[in-house]
């Protein structure tokens, strides 16, 4: 089976789109939580092909975007400490903190490496025994297990100069926070695919049960999203609210037990700061006591200084789903992918970047 082209076939898409149009009677608002889904939706113009009854809003599911400025400032402050090497996934480089970005401090001489895997960060630690290597642990449940694995390996190999700045975030608690705020009324949720590959579909049950909102886990190809929307519409029209999976090739209801165990072993939940949303209880991960010597926050004296938010930037409102990039007066003018003001324009999974790059609904 071809895992990409099979899920981009126009004749199958046509059938699904027609079915959604036939089925959808009730006006609804669906949120795609995940930034990866936002990108697919814009890249393939999915909003344009859905009936008028369906309104789509983008959620906070972009790890780079939801990282609070105070946490970015910590990473930048760490990079300025002598003999510290920062290792990070590439998306973080350009995100502006209060005063600078990793890309700028790198140009000024800070030692910042982009890596594609935590194991590469560990390798860098091995090659630089006289320096301290800090990995920026940014991401959801998807990346946390790989970072946990790197910590385990560091312990086994007695690597003494590897640290993690744990800024991980957990998805189900923040969805609860958004629903509890009552700011956005949702009738359906497109649940994240990669996160669910780790945690399974069970952790979303509370949304269907407590809030009566249909949930479907989706993959990242255009046909995945269409199928997911179709399943949400079917639940709505049948008066149901349950959790379903439209991404069986990636997600099992019970998730990836091995990865979950690994996470559990190394991390424990803690409160976390989300950009635009604020502190959400039990939505972050910190290193458990016995692994604390890998915790960069404890190992270094970090002085990030006062935090500032960029003036005029509405990334926070966009992440909560209450505003769209089109509502932002900076969008496309003062804030572009070349000169981003807010993180949603920087990250490849950010809503502003998707709006900007793919130009929603220009027709033609």
């Amino acid at each position, binding site marked *: 089976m*071809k*895992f*990409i*082209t099979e899920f*981009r*076939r*126009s004749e199958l*898409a*046509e059938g699904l*789109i027609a079915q959604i149009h036939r089925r959808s009677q009730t006006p609804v608002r669906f949120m795609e939580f995940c930034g990866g889904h936002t990108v697919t939706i*814009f*890249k*393939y*113009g*999915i*909003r*344009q*092909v859905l009936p008028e009854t369906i309104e789509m809003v983008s959620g906070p599911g972009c790890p780079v975007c939801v990282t609070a400025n105070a946490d970015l400032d910590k990473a930048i402050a760490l990079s300025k400490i002598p003999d510290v090497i920062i290792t990070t996934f590439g998306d973080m480089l*350009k995100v502006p903190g209060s005063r600078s970005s990793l890309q700028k401090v790198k140009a000024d001489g800070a030692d910042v490496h982009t*890596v*594609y895997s935590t194991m*590469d960060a560990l390798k860098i630690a091995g090659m630089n025994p006289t320096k301290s290597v800090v990995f920026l642990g940014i991401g959801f449940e998807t990346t946390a297990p790989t970072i946990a694995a790197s910590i385990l390996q560091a312990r086994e190999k007695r690597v003494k100069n590897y640290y993690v700045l744990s800024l991980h975030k957990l998805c189900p608690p923040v969805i609860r926070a958004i629903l509890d705020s009552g700011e956005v009324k949702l009738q359906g949720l497109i649940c994240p695919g990669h996160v669910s590959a780790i945690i399974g579909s069970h952790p979303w049950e509370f949304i269907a049960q407590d809030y009566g909102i249909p949930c479907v886990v989706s993959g990242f190809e*255009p046909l995945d999203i*269409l199928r997911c929307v179709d399943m949400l519409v079917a639940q709505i029209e049948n008066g149901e609210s349950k959790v379903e999976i439209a991404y069986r090739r990636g997600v099992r209801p019970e998730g990836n037990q091995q990865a979950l165990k690994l996470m559990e072993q190394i991390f424990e939940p803690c409160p976390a700061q989300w950009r635009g949303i604020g502190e959400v209880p039990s939505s972050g991960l910190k290193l458990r006591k016995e692994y604390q010597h890998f915790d960069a926050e404890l190992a270094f004296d970090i002085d990030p200084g006062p935090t500032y938010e960029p003036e005029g930037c509405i990334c926070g409102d966009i992440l909560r789903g209450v505003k769209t990039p089109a509502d932002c007066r900076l969008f496309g003018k003062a804030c572009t*992918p*070349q000169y981003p003001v807010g993180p949603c324009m920087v990250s*490849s999974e950010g809503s502003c970047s998707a709006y*900007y*790059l*793919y*130009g929603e609904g*220009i*027709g*033609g």
Partner: protein
Amino acid sequence: MEDKILLAHGSGGKLAHELVEKGFLKAFDNPLLAKLDDSAVFNLSGRLAFTTDSYVVSPIFFPGGDIGKLAVCGTVNDLAMSGAKPLYLSLSFIIEEGLPQGELSQIVDSIYKAAQEANVEIVAGDTKVVNRGSADKLFINTAGVGIIAEGIDISGSNASPGDKVLLSGPIGDHGIAVVSQREGLSFSTQLKSDCAPLGSLVAEMLEASSNIHCLRDPTRGGLATTLNELAKQSKVSIRIEEEKIPVREEVLAACEMLGFDPLYVANEGKLVAIVPTKDANKVLKAMQQNHYAKDAAIIGEVQAERPGRVVMKTCLGASRIVDMLVGDLLPRIC
């Protein structure tokens, strides 16, 4: 021990002469070069095309080619994209001390082969050796000249509404083949760079129609960037169809893994042609008969409205903007 390039190889002294005579002269043997004067002297008549380029690809060997083949093909293709018949090239080598001589000979050999195939002669050259760390193994700078036949007028500003957009084959092979060898990224793939000289393809296309409006090779920045350049230069819009653009499954898979869009991935043996509708099928047929463009396709057309824009019809029938590449997808791809 393996013989390495030493600083003395670039000193102008005996070692330098030995390198030139044994390394380069023998391989690129031709009367213009063999004179060893300060410049190559030759007669040309007609309209000239003249181009220059530098090659800093990392790694210098990659599946389907190396920096030498790339330098010849890239320069030849720049000439061909002006509708010129490529004739003469110059090559300047900037070598980092310590480069194994064996690697250099391998590259020289592939330069020879590429030049043979492209039917061009290397008529001038230079060699410098720099300290370790001042270059990365090998950089090559080139220049090239060619002649443009009467009646041919090819330029990025010639696209006009109604023209068809032709693409010579699947996109993204070169970028992904190079990336697959990068340290920290390496993954296993059967994919090879599409690096190829396109002089003969262009000659055959021009034989089919002398009315070709634009030719361009979508190298760095990929197809998306090339189409944006053409749209802006010609003050037109270009509308393409996602499903008509050939991309290999391996390239799609690698792009998914790396977070790239194939539209932005570099090619080194592909071209985009913008051709008046009446000649489009003739040119397409000519392309499909050439070894390097068997999978050529018409992927879209030129329109008047919204000048400067490139718009793509997605596989769902919706439209989206295709912008230029922002930032660097991958440095040192060519």
